[in-house]
């Protein structure tokens, strides 16, 4: 394998990893704060993808510009889902919370998926922008514009989330609630509002990931669960307490998958990802970026 083609493989892994990172950060955020696994996260991602597709096919809107529609729409859907469903589950404790959150979010997965089939049909849709397939050639390595912009957006979103969480009061309230929700209440934080906003923020992150997935791969109603699983692998890699750590962990998974795909064949790409997942669980159960 030439150096160029190895570099090309690395770069493509990086691009894919950026999407993994964004998809996983939303799931990690909701998991870290609400302490429940939202299996329907991938469905929210799928809905965000459709927002991009319809904005493109009806108004001819550039998919990256359509983030301006997808993000607020999914934020609203997140608020509604929290009010209608999740705020009841957040209040539960122990085993009751674990079982109910899994059951309910899995149920929602089926509902949203079938709703999408009914509304959008089961066809796979793609977005063909004028600059698709065009790229920037850097020392023999091709950087397609769509993927380059996607990675840039992923990085910007990660930095923005870091700023929100560590440098603003609403963000610090989110981190405090994730650390110890009773201590957060004693500091004067309305934790149920934090739960609602966090869920909506998680949905918005899913929507961004959905846009990037639609631009690069295309979209159909059934893709949700695949992305939930991918995001789940990434947050275990990162460590379940680490919200921002999901981004580098996503990049890592993307690169490892791409490189192993190139060396031992793409059939085993997913397997290598899962092997790493198991190794981390066995050797470093707190995750790569987690604290004990």
């Amino acid at each position, binding site marked *: 394998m030439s150096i160029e083609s190895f570099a090309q493989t690395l770069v493509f892994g990086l691009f894919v990893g950026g999407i993994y990172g964004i998809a996983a950060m939303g799931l990690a955020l909701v998991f870290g704060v609400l302490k429940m696994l939202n299996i329907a996260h991938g469905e929210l991602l799928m809905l965000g993808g459709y927002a991009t597709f319809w904005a493109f096919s009806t108004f001819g809107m550039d998919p990256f510009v359509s983030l301006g529609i997808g993000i607020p729409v999914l934020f609203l859907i997140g608020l509604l889902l929290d009010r209608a469903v999740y705020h009841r589950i957040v209040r539960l404790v122990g085993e009751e919370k674990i079982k109910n959150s899994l059951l309910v979010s899995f149920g929602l997965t089926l509902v949203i998926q079938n709703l999408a089939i009914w509304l959008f049909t089961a066809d796979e849709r793609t977005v063909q922008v004028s600059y698709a397939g065009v790229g920037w050639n850097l020392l023999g390595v091709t950087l397609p514009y769509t993927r380059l912009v996607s990675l840039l957006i992923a990085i910007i979103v990660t930095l923005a989330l870091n700023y929100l969480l560590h440098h603003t009061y609403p963000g*610090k309230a989110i981190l405090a609630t994730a650390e*110890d929700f*009773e201590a*957060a209440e*004693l*500091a*004067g934080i309305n934790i149920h509002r934090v739960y609602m906003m966090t869920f909506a923020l998680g949905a918005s992150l899913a929507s961004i990931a959905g846009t990037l997935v639609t631009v690069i791969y295309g979209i159909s109603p059934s893709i949700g669960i695949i992305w939930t699983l991918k995001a789940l692998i990434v947050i275990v890699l990162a460590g379940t*307490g680490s919200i921002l750590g999901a981004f580098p962990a996503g990049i890592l998974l993307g690169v490892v998958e791409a490189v192993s795909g190139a060396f031992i064949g793409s059939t085993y790409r997913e397997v290598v990802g899962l092997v790493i997942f198991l190794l981390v669980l066995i050797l470093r159960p707190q995750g790569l970026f987690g604290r004990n």
Partner: protein
Amino acid sequence: MTKFLDVHGVNASYGDIQALWDVSLKVNEGEIVALIGPNGAGKTTLMRVMTGLHQPLSGTVKLGNADLHTLPAYQIVEKGVILVPEGRRLFGGLTVLENLELGAYARRARDLRFRTLKRVFEIFPLLSERQNQRANTLSGGQQQMLAIGRALMGLPKLLMLDEPSLGLAPMIVENIFEVVKLMNNQGVTIFLVEQNARRALELANRAYILEQGRIVGKGTGKELLHNNEVRQAYLGFAPTPR
């Protein structure tokens, strides 16, 4: 002294087990009031009821003329009633500074946070030195200082402390009681739960004794320090021979 905090007829339970039975007590403005009693007497439960973390079965908690028992915890903080919880409950993964900033989350404290922060750093210079360190890397005594500093950031009118001396070295306990006295001198009313009964009674204007969920005694700190039953049960004196 005016009536300030008024707890009246509070009953509370965890599931089928009743933890508090008809508990009533008062704290006047500017006082230091202590609550002593053995482990499992319900002291922490009472604190949880007063801060809105636990819903009582019946009874009222009032601050002045305002009901506290109908408010969620975060609105009680907004009234200036602030608890330093047992076990400190810091945001361990966040920095010392972030913990302090979160202490001033309430609207009434947020605008004044820079001034308050300066004051807290004057009281605990060590927190200023370690402001960018993660809270869970501090020692036990430093963590207790941070927990109190975080509470002070909320500009308490009534500062409640649940077992602030638990597990700390005597010198640090001294330091912490000094700070409590200092805050009281500056006009903050103090409600203190302590297992270190002697220290608490020496400091307090008045005290209540809670046993098995019931208030079984009250008096000024001095009275209780010299009360035979209290001396035997809490201060380690052997019964006087007859």
